[in-house]
């Protein structure tokens, strides 16, 4: 009927009561669980503190700067004068095994993985036997085995005294090696500059090859430029002596900074990060029709982010203010210690440009009169009560290092071989057939067609294996290799400070895991297939 009016009744839905509201319940449950967990930790911590007090050990960080009486078997400093220095030696030892192990395990694992796919029956079976044997025996058993094997080598006798190129005994493997000498830091800067110049030139050669189709030989140009800069740097490194004053000036500037700067920087970063996150969150809620509706969940998130930022900022000031004892006997706060450490670093840089320092491998005494790199041969000498031992020249692979390095590398290589095999098998068979029909030989199509495609599939599990290798170096504790876990364990036994040492362990390993993951993820993202 025309003219009729339609009235619409809008019924107000009653709001769900609070105790049945799903969002409120969810957040209440989360907060209850969080509070419960925090309370549990605080209970354990307070119990630990009371137990500490009753047993007369003061829980603190003073052992970092006071002498701990720890003697280490190997490392850059076998008689460290403070707990922090001992930890540094442990970290360097861990990184030595981890980094060299990652390189060799990758190469060995790739070779074995490719061999596992060989059409040659015997090579295939040898690789298969290797993988099946090594993967199924626990790593610790293998490490003990290598250690027992090395200890059955002949021992050094008085007739062995002298200089050698290679010497093998049950005290370790010694061979001649190259060490950093005076002026190695300026020389290294020449090489690095040459590296980047070479990279630029190689890029230009590659562009030339893309344009004209002639071979650009970018790789050869790069290598030649790096070689040339190394040779130039060998003789010309004193020219960079002016940098000594530059770094000296930076050092004085750092020493003059008020120590409260560092907590301020951390607090600004935390608050800035929280504000940036909240702003991004609000921006993502903005639609062309105006500001979108914020649910309860979103409000909770915003508040949580804000609280976290403020909490981190406050924690920075509190931690920065902690007072510690230094080796010299006076008290400094954490922020002051950071400033001193930073100043020391620039001081060391300045001294190395003056030609005053030799390389970090100070245990092997390289002759100071040489250039940036010094060649050093091992020797056997009589020490103490006429006991033949290796002299501190040349490179010495001790039995613990050999045991842990060989065990960890061979073990990880077996896993990498399986990953590589899986990655190669995952590339479509049509690629192989097409390559063969065009006339590629097996080595060629592996190198140019299969492996580049397989690399995308191999990379995430490969990163995982690198992490495992880095963590497996902690088994050095079982063969008396002075890695971070072994050093921490020794300090723990000497000083009884179990909780601080455990915190140091966790901080180190989490940092190392995050670093390796970050590098692997970076390459992973670069290799991602770009979707529309």
């Amino acid at each position: 009927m025309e003219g009729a009016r339609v009235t619409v009744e809008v019924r107000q839905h009653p709001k769900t009561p609070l105790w049945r509201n799903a969002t409120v319940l969810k957040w209440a449950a989360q907060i209850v669980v969080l509070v419960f967990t925090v309370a549990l930790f605080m209970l354990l911590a307070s119990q630990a503190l009371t137990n500490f007090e009753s047993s007369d050990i003061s829980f603190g960080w003073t052992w970092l700067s006071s002498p701990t009486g720890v003697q280490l078997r190997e490392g850059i400093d076998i008689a460290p004068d403070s707990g922090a220095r001992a930890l540094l030696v442990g970290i360097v030892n861990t990184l030595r095994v981890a980094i060299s192990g990652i390189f060799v395990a990758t190469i060995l694992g790739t070779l074995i993985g490719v061999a596992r796919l060989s059409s040659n029956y015997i090579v295939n079976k040898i690789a298969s036997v290797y993988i099946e044997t090594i993967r199924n025996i626990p790593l610790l058993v293998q490490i003990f085995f290598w250690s027992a094997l090395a200890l059955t080598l002949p021992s050094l006798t008085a007739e062995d005294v002298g200089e050698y190129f290679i010497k093998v005994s049950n005290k370790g493997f010694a061979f001649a090696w190259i060490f950093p000498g005076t002026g190695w830091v300026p020389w290294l800067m020449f090489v690095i500059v040459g590296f980047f110049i070479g990279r630029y030139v190689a890029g230009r050669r590659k562009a030339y090859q893309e344009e004209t189709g002639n071979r650009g030989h970018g790789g050869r140009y790069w290598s030649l430029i790096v070689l040339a800069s190394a040779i130039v740097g060998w003789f010309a490194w004193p020219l960079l002596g002016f940098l000594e004053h530059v770094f000296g000036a930076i050092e004085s500037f750092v020493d003059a900074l008020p120590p409260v700067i560092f907590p301020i920087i951390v607090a600004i970063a935390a608050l800035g990060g929280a504000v940036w996150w909240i702003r991004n969150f609000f921006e993502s809620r903005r639609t062309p029709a105006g500001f979108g509706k914020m649910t309860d969940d979103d409000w909770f998130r915003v508040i949580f982010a804000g609280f976290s930022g403020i909490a981190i900022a406050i924690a920075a000031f509190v931690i920065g203010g902690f007072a510690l004892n230094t080796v010299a006997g006076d008290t400094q706060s954490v922020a002051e210690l950071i400033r001193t450490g930073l100043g020391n670093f620039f001081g060391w840089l300045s001294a190395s440009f003056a030609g005053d320092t030799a390389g970090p491998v100070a245990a092997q005494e390289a002759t100071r009169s040489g250039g940036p790199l010094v060649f050093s041969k091992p020797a056997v000498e009589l020490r103490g009560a006429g006991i033949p031992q290796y002299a501190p020249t040349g490179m010495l692979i001790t039995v613990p290092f050999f045991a842990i390095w060989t065990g960890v590398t061979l073990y990880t290589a077996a896993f990498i071989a399986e990953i590589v095999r899986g990655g190669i098998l995952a590339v479509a068979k049509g690629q192989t057939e097409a390559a063969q029909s065009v006339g590629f030989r097996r080595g060629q199509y592996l190198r140019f067609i299969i492996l580049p495609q397989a690399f995308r599939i191999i990379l995430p599990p490969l990163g995982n294996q690198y992490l495992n290798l880095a963590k497996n170096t902690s088994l050095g504790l079982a063969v008396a290799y002075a890695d971070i876990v072994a050093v921490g364990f020794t300090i723990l036994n000497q000083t009884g400070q179990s909780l601080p040492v455990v915190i140091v362990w966790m901080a180190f390993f989490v940092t190392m895991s995050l670093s390796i993951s970050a590098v692997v993820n970076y390459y992973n993202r670069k290799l991602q297939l770009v979707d529309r």
Partner: protein
Amino acid sequence: MADMTTAPELEIAPEPPPKGVQVWLRDNLFSTPASAVMTVISLIIVFLAYRGLLGFVFNPGGRWDAVTFNMKLLMVQAYPSDDLWRVWLSVGFIFALAAASFAIWRVGGKTEPRALTKVLMSIGGALVIGGLLAPFSASGTITWIVIGLVLAGLGWLVRMWAGERSKEPIVPVMGLVGIGFLLITIAIWIMEVPYPSRDADGGQIIIQQGIATTTTIPWTIIFAITAIVYVLFRLIGGSSKDGAIRGTLTVLWALSFPVLLLIVLRNPDMDISKATTFYIPVFIGFAVAGWLLLTLVTRKGLEEFGRILGAVLLLVGFASFAISMPFVIRFLLLLLALFILAAPTFGGEGAANRRYLIAWVGTVLITTVAALVISSESLINVPGSFFLGGLSLTIVLAFTSIVLSFPLGIILALGRTSTMPIFRLMSTAYIELVRGVPLITWLLVAFLMLPVALPNGIEIGGVMRAIGAMTFFSAAYLAENVRGGLQALHSGQREASKALGMSTLQETVFITLPQALRAVIPALVGQVIALFKDTSLVTIVGLFDFLHMARSVIPAQSQPFSFLGSIKWTLVFAAAVYWVFTFTFSRVSQRLEKKLGVGER
């Protein structure tokens, strides 16, 4: 016109592909010059390695007696000899249960005679070559060559017997396993392995040849029982009672490990008065109260009340930790709260409700019995350490950690993929922290820091700490694997279950988890194998596990026989045993994957 397609001279059969040993050699070993060179080099390496291995194993100066004399130490450490029958009983029970399960679930199937021939001839060939390469005496060389030729001849005979059907699966695998057991039994009776024993006066220790009867008799009995049980269950199986038998076997498997470990091997000193005055009343009280409450909350209209009751009971259960009361009562309170909260999902009406109530009673029964057994002292007197050691301790550590870490890992994975930010944050923080730190560090934390952090009066033994550390560690890795499965799940499943009105718990338990877990079985089994290998790390913190026996205890012995310097042989033995276990696991997992059709739609 003549039909070209049927002209007889055009119907020539294609040439058969070239067969024969020369063709195989040419294709596989000498296909290209580079391949030929690699073949020659590899053959030299293989011969040298084989010769070295044989030289090590049969070295006359080898200390294999360190292994054979100390077999009991390696297996059960210092378990009292009078009670060793308990160990044999447990081993025999597991073997019999496995035989019954293999029979009922028709495990094994059949294999091709061709495969059997290949295995026999390759072993025979390896023995002949080994006999020629190894530094044996003349009689030893001849024995090896003869045995090798006999085996190769057997392989040839199998091929002749199969004839045309050599590629069809007609050889039963379980039959081969039975023949293998028979040969092992004969071998342990006639092998000449020296072992020490006391002479007739009980004084001097003399060395006798042949394996001790305290080992041969139990193994013979166990193998005989296994064979009999297998045949018996093969005959029973396939009847109408198959489902009931399978159910009973599953329950037996679930109960076997705790019962064997806690009651048979540990031999608790059970106090009847304590049982009647405390545990039986507790059991009756909770069973009856739980029955009544669960029936109440599943009535129509009372679901809200049920949820509130469940939440209140949960809070009461947690609050009871602040009051001192027996642990078993707190635990039963929490269990009751969980059962009430889960009642709408699993309970309800009719048969499901009855099953739920019976499950409640069963849970209370198992909890009270376990509490009674654990709180009683063990009558097995091993000074200074856990009542087990050696390989048995390794198996206990691995099994307990795996079983305990599965629920924790699944909860963590669900937390990490949850929509609630705090749960996600806490789960991610836990997983990343625990995974980033090596297991040895966690073991050291458990052994060095836990005694400091616990209130006085609560003591956790070394083995418990190791199990705790490995459980928490393994849960983080399992969580990552399960997360992969959860993320691979189609989102349509979740939407469909929401459309049907299922609650989150129902959807998780009945839809999400079964599919997610099935998709990641290879990764889960890989994690189980890795955890078994990682149990060897407890030797660093001083527990007397298998590796500790092999590396530290035996090579340090000097009384009554000196085994100093025998570490190479004990380590090789330990490596071989670990290898056998993990290789078997991985083969079993491959067969399991094939059977469950993982990876197929």
